C-alpha cells in the first residue's frame, strides 16, 4: 500500500471495517510512514472528540407538543367529519324533499301529451270512415305512417312531437296546389287567409286546406281575429258556439286556451278532429257578426304580431275604418305579405273583388283583399262569390257604425281564434 491508498482507508481502519489483510498492510505502512501516522492520529483524535460530545435529552416540550398537536389534529379531523356528515345529511334531506316534487312536476308535464295522443287515437276511426272514399291514394303513405306513429307512441316527448309536426307540415306542403300560400312557423303549417277589409263580418271563404278532397294527414291552423269591446261576453259566446258545433263525444277535443299575450289580445284555440267540424266552425264565425257591439272580422293570420290591441286613431276619424287602417299598416310593414302579393289570376272572383274595392273606402282595402283573391282563385268561383258578397254588404254597414262604436268603446280587445284541424285519416 502506498500513502494515498493508506490515507483513503484510515476512516475504515478506525471504524474496524477493513479485512485482516488490509489491516495488517495498513498498520505496517503506518509504522514506517510518519506522515501517514500523523494523519491517522489526528483523524482518530477528531473522531474521539465527536464521540465525546454530550448527548442531549429531549426536553419534555417535545412529547407535550406532539401530544397537543395530535389532539388538535384529531379535533380538526372530527370537526371535518362532522361538517362532512352534516353536509351529506342536508343534501340527502333536500333530495328526499325535492324528489317527490320533481317527480310530480314531471308527471304533470308529461300527462297532457299522453292525453293528446289518446284523443287523436280516438278520432282516427271517424276520420277513416269519412275519408274511406277519398281518391287521394298518394296521400295514404304519409297518413299511414302518421297514424301508426299516433297509435304506437303512447308517450312521446316534446322533441318527438315536434318531429311529427314537421312531418305533417311536409306532407301538407307536398299536397298544396299552386297558388296556395302556406307558411310554416315552428313546424306548424299555417294557411293564410285574408278577410275583406271594411267588413264587419268574418270571411266565410272556403279554405282549400279544409276541402275534403284536399284534406290529408296534416295540421291546418286558421287564425281569425275578432275585435270586440266586451271581451268576457264574446269569449263565452264564442266558446258556446264551438261547443254547439262540436258533438258531445268530441267535446273533449276542444282545447280552449286563453292566453293573454299582448295587452288586450286573447287567443282562443280550438282543435277540430274532422274537416266537417272545421267547416262548420268557420261558418259559425260569420254568425259572430250579429253579436252586438262586436266588430267581427276575419283577418290574415300568417303574420304573427299583425294583430295588436286596437285603439282609437286618426285614420278612424278621417273616414277610413280603424281596422282597415290597421291592416294597411300591418301589410305595408310586413315583407312576407308584400312578397305574397302575386299577380291576380283572372276569374269571377276577381270582378267581385274589384267591385268591393270600389265600394270600400280606400286603397288599403284593395291591397288587403288581393291575397284573399289569390287564394280563392284555385277554390272555385261560385263559392268565392258567395263568400265575398256576404261580408261585402255587412262590411259596409260595419264601417259606418264602426266610428260610433269606437268612440263608445274605451278599450277594445282582439280575440284571435285559431282553428286547428288534425286530420289523420288513413
Amino acid at each position: 500500500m502506498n500513502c494515498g491508498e493508506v490515507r483513503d482507508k484510515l476512516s475504515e481502519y478506525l471504524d474496524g471495517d477493513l479485512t485482516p489483510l488490509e489491516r495488517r498492510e495498513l498498520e505496517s505502512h503506518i509504522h514506517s510512514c510518519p506522515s501517514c501516522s500523523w494523519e491517522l492520529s489526528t483523524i482518530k483524535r477528531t473522531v474521539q472528540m465527536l464521540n465525546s460530545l454530550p448527548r442531549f435529552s429531549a426536553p419534555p416540550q417535545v412529547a407535550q407538543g406532539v401530544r397537543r398537536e395530535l389532539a388538535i389534529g384529531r379535533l380538526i379531523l372530527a370537526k371535518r367529519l362532522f361538517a362532512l356528515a352534516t353536509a351529506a345529511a342536508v343534501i340527502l334531506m333536500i333530495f328526499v324533499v325535492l324528489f317527490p316534487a320533481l317527480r310530480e312536476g314531471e308527471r304533470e308535464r308529461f300527462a297532457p301529451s299522453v292525453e293528446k295522443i289518446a284523443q287523436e287515437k280516438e278520432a282516427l276511426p271517424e276520420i277513416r270512415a269519412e275519408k274511406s272514399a277519398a281518391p287521394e291514394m298518394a296521400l295514404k303513405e304519409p297518413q299511414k305512417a302518421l297514424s301508426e306513429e299516433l297509435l304506437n307512441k303512447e308517450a312521446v316527448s316534446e322533441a318527438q312531437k315536434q318531429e311529427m309536426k314537421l312531418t305533417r307540415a311536409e306532407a301538407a306542403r307536398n299536397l298544396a296546389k299552386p297558388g296556395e300560400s302556406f307558411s310554416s312557423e315552428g313546424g306548424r303549417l299555417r294557411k293564410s287567409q285574408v278577410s275583406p277589409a271594411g267588413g264587419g263580418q268574418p270571411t266565410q271563404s272556403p279554405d282549400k286546406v279544409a276541402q275534403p278532397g284536399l284534406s290529408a294527414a296534416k295540421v291546418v291552423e286558421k287564425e281569425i281575429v275578432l275585435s270586440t269591446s266586451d271581451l268576457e261576453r264574446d269569449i263565452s259566446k264564442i266558446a258556446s258556439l264551438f261547443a254547439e258545433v262540436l258533438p258531445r263525444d268530441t267535446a273533449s277535443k276542444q282545447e280552449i286556451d286563453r292566453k293573454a299575450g299582448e295587452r288586450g289580445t286573447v287567443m282562443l284555440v280550438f282543435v277540430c278532429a274532422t274537416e266537417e267540424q272545421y267547416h262548420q266552425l268557420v261558418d259559425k264565425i260569420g254568425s259572430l257578426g250579429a253579436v252586438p257591439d262586436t266588430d267581427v272580422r276575419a283577418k290574415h293570420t300568417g303574420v304573427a304580431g299583425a294583430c295588436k290591441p286596437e285603439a282609437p286613431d286618426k285614420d278612424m276619424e278621417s273616414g277610413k275604418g280603424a281596422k282597415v287602417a290597421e291592416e294597411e299598416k300591418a301589410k305595408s310593414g310586413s315583407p312576407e305579405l308584400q312578397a305574397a302579393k302575386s299577380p291576380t289570376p283572372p276569374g269571377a272572383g276577381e270582378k267581385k273583388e274589384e267591385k268591393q274595392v270600389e265600394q270600400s273606402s280606400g286603397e288599403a282595402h284593395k291591397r288587403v283583399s288581393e291575397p284573399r283573391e289569390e287564394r280563392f282563385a284555385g277554390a272555385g268561383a261560385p263559392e268565392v262569390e258567395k263568400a265575398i258578397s256576404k261580408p261585402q254588404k255587412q262590411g259596409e254597414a260595419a264601417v259606418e257604425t264602426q266610428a260610433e262604436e269606437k268612440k263608445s268603446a274605451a278599450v277594445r280587445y282582439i280575440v284571435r281564434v285559431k282553428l286547428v284541424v288534425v286530420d289523420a285519416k288513413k
Partner: protein
Amino acid sequence: MADGELTLDGQEETETVRDFEAIVQKYQDRIFNTVARLVSNHDDALDITQEVFLKAYRALRGFRGCASVYTWLYRIAVNTALSHRRSPVVRSLSFSDGVDPDRYNTRTEIEDVTPETCDLVSRREVQERIQEAILSLDGDLRSVVVLRDVEGLGYSEIAKVLCLPEGTVKSRLHRGRLILRDRLLDIIHVEEKK
C-alpha cells in the same frame, strides 16, 4: 450503540406503531440529539423534533414495517433538519448558552482531555468548537458524520437512512472527518504539545 437498539424486531415494531406515543417516548432523545447536532440552536431542534414525530404520525399508514422504526425516524429527522431554514440570526453556541450541559446525559466524557487542556480551553469551549465545525460542513457530509460519529450508526444503517450506497457513505464520512480535523487542528495541537 449496539445493533439491537437500532433494529427492532417485528413484534416490537408492530406494537410501537399501534401506540404512537410509545414511539415518541422511546425515540425522542435520539432524534432530538441528532437534530440538535444538525441545526444551529436549541429552539430549532425542539421544533424540528416535534415536526419529525408529527410527520411520522401522518405517515404511519405508509409505514409497512419493512424498515426499522429507528431508521425510518432518522430518515425523517435528517431530511427535515437539512431542509429547515436557518434562523435569521444564527446564534452560535446557542446550545451552550441556552441549555445547561449538565442537564444532558453525558455518554462519555472527553477522556483524553488533560487538566492542562482544561486550563487552556474549557470543556464547554471545546464542545462549542466541535459543534461549530460540524455545522460548517455541507449537509451531505454533516449528516453522515453526525449519524456515524455522534449517533454511532453503522455504514449499512446510514446507507439506509440516507438512501445511499455504502461506498458513498464511507467516502463522505472520510471527507467530513478530514475537514473537521483541519478545523479542529489547533485544539489537537495543543493537546499534543501537552
